[in-house]
């Protein structure tokens, strides 16, 4: 159906369609830069979300690591095995010194094919929530109930391919030595004397815990008692009865303080934090605070990436400006004709400015779709491959800011070409071409 009249909008669209290559390339550039910015904003939010997951409903984390930040990185994100142990007696004295809701001991240091192992108590599954408000869920099997039973995090299960009922041998240390291989003193050695039976596989939590395997504390202590006895030349099976106080070591304590009903905050937090800090043998960390500190440390790098993306967005706006500005040379006659027909200078200025805004808006909206589709694809891939749960939706605030910024830049980019159109000398451009 043909048009009933001609509008400014139709003139703008016809003008853009008259130079499709330039228009589509410019839209593509704006779309790419907007998608890049949104992905970077999204990654920052997702990374923050991923870090916030994992500390769950812990109020305080105690360890013997060199600093609270290292304690959080090791104890919650499994960055490394904590290097210094805490005596069981210290755990008992801490637990009895204050009416904590719960105090869960943890011990790290062993591994299975490179995946970290955490030895802990059954409270770890019944009281600790890896994500606040989201308790552990089993994909199959059950939580461990006795020594030498092992529960697999979702990503660890996927990576190892282990199934319920299979037996595994843990490696002392965090090395990646494999079962059956020769002991490697740097990578740790495999405890083939103590098979662990897979009894459960956890649902993904979107936290670092998904990469870990979980056993009970006593099993871990028996492994270390076996090593001690072997070094002392004592042969024969090692059981719980052979444990000595020196074998009963842990590397961390997850603490939750009393709270009022319906609140996650504890009035005793600061007081108890200060009390624990007086003990120079341990460090105490508030995970949320340390994660914030970590983000402050990496914010400079984060800022550089965002800055680069902004530069790309500005570059695409400059491209829009150049494409429109250069097109003016070929359009002076068209502009002069419109002026003769009655178009004012302001109207011609508006037409060119609208072209710039249309290109930018089309690019920005395409960029949002691109970022959204990319986010959905990346989220699905991360969940399927490493069990990492990332929200693929775009942050509305970031999206509005990026969209607004892109459109504002598009408007600015259109000013120079629009000004050139505004100044086209009408009479001089109506003469027959030489």
């Amino acid at each position, binding site marked *: 159906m043909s048009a009933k*009249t*001609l509008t400014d909008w139709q003139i703008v669209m*016809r003008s853009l369609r008259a130079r499709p290559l330039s228009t589509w390339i410019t839209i593509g550039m704006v779309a790419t830069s907007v998608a890049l910015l949104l992905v970077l904003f999204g990654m920052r939010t997702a990374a923050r979300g991923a870090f916030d997951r994992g500390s769950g409903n812990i109020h305080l984390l105690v360890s013997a690591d060199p600093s609270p930040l290292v304690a959080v990185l090791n104890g919650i994100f499994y960055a490394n095995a904590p290097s210094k142990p805490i005596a069981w007696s210290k755990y008992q004295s801490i637990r009895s010194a204050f009416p904590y809701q719960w105090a869960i001991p943890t011990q790290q240091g062993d591994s299975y094919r490179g995946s970290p192992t955490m030895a802990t108590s059954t409270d770890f599954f019944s009281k600790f929530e890896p994500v606040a408000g989201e308790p552990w869920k089993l994909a199959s099997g059950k939580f461990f109930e006795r020594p030498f039973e092992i529960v697999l995090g979702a990503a660890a299960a996927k990576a190892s391919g282990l199934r319920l009922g299979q037996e595994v041998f843990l490696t002392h240390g965090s090395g990646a030595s494999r079962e059956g291989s020769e002991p490697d003193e740097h990578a740790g050695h495999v405890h083939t004397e103590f098979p662990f039976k897979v009894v459960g596989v956890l649902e993904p939590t979107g936290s670092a815990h998904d990469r870990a395997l979980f056993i009970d504390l006593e099993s871990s202590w028996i492994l270390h008692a076996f090593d001690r006895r072997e070094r002392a030349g004592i042969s024969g099976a090692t059981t719980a009865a052979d444990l000595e106080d020196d074998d009963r070591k842990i590397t961390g304590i997850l603490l939750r303080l009393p709270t009022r009903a319906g609140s996650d905050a504890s009035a005793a937090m600061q007081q108890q934090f200060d009390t624990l800090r007086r003990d120079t043998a341990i460090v105490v960390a508030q995970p949320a605070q340390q994660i914030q500190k970590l983000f402050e440390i990496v914010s400079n790098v984060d800022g550089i990436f965002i800055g680069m993306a902004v530069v790309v967005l500005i570059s695409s706006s400059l491209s829009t400006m150049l494409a429109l500005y250069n097109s003016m040379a070929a359009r002076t*006659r068209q502009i002069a004709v419109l002026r*003769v027909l009655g*178009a*004012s200078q302001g*109207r011609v200025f508006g037409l060119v400015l609208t072209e710039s805004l249309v290109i930018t808006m089309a690019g920005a909206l395409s960029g949002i779709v691109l970022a959204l589709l990319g986010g959905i694809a990346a989220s699905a891939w991360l969940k399927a491959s490493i069990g990492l749960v990332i929200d693929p939706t775009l942050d509305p605030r970031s999206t509005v800011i990026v969209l607004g910024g892109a459109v504002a830049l598009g408007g600015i980019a259109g000013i120079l070409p629009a000004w050139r159109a505004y100044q086209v000398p009408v009479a001089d451009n*109506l003469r*027959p071409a030489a």
Partner: protein
Amino acid sequence: MPVPALIIRDLRFSYPDASWALSVPHLQVEAGEHVLLVGGSGRGKSTLLQVVAGLRELGSGSVEVAGMRMDTLRGAARDEARGRSIGMIFQTFNLLHGFTALENVFAALMFSSMPAAEHEHRARTLLSTLGIADADADVDRLSVGQQQRVAVARALAARPALVLADEPTASLDPENTETAMDLIQSACRAEGAALLCTSHDPSMRARFARIESIDAMIAGGAR
């Protein structure tokens, strides 16, 4: 008594650093009147039309089109007045490329006072009258003769009081010149528009009852 289509009084215009100037003490074109402005190439005929259309600033004097003082209007007001009262036809048509014949006529109507609802009927009727069968064809696909018809339709679309035709036949052979002038003059008569047509072609004189010479409107050094 109908308002004259054009009244020029004491007009003086010169280009910067030019040794000559256009000087028109009085020129009046009555409503519906057809006037031929003759003179050799480069004598200032096109310049006079541009001054009348408000595309160049006159130095002094006044230009009144359909009772409206063009010289006192500025900016958008002058553009609007031009769109409503003056139609222009050019030697090379100056059509909007990439647009259809219909859209080229719409382009003149969109700046006129005619309600948008009437645009299509007006444009199609005009194009049909002037022999354009396919109004929705892209102007780049039309023959030269058809393009000229579209240019004439566009100039008359807003029902202007005055049509300024600037050397409309300069690039045509004698046979096509006759055809084109027949078209322009008959269309102007049909629409009741006055016509001020420039030409350096002596054969055009026979078509006009009134002929003015640009040479009589030049003051200063010889050109």
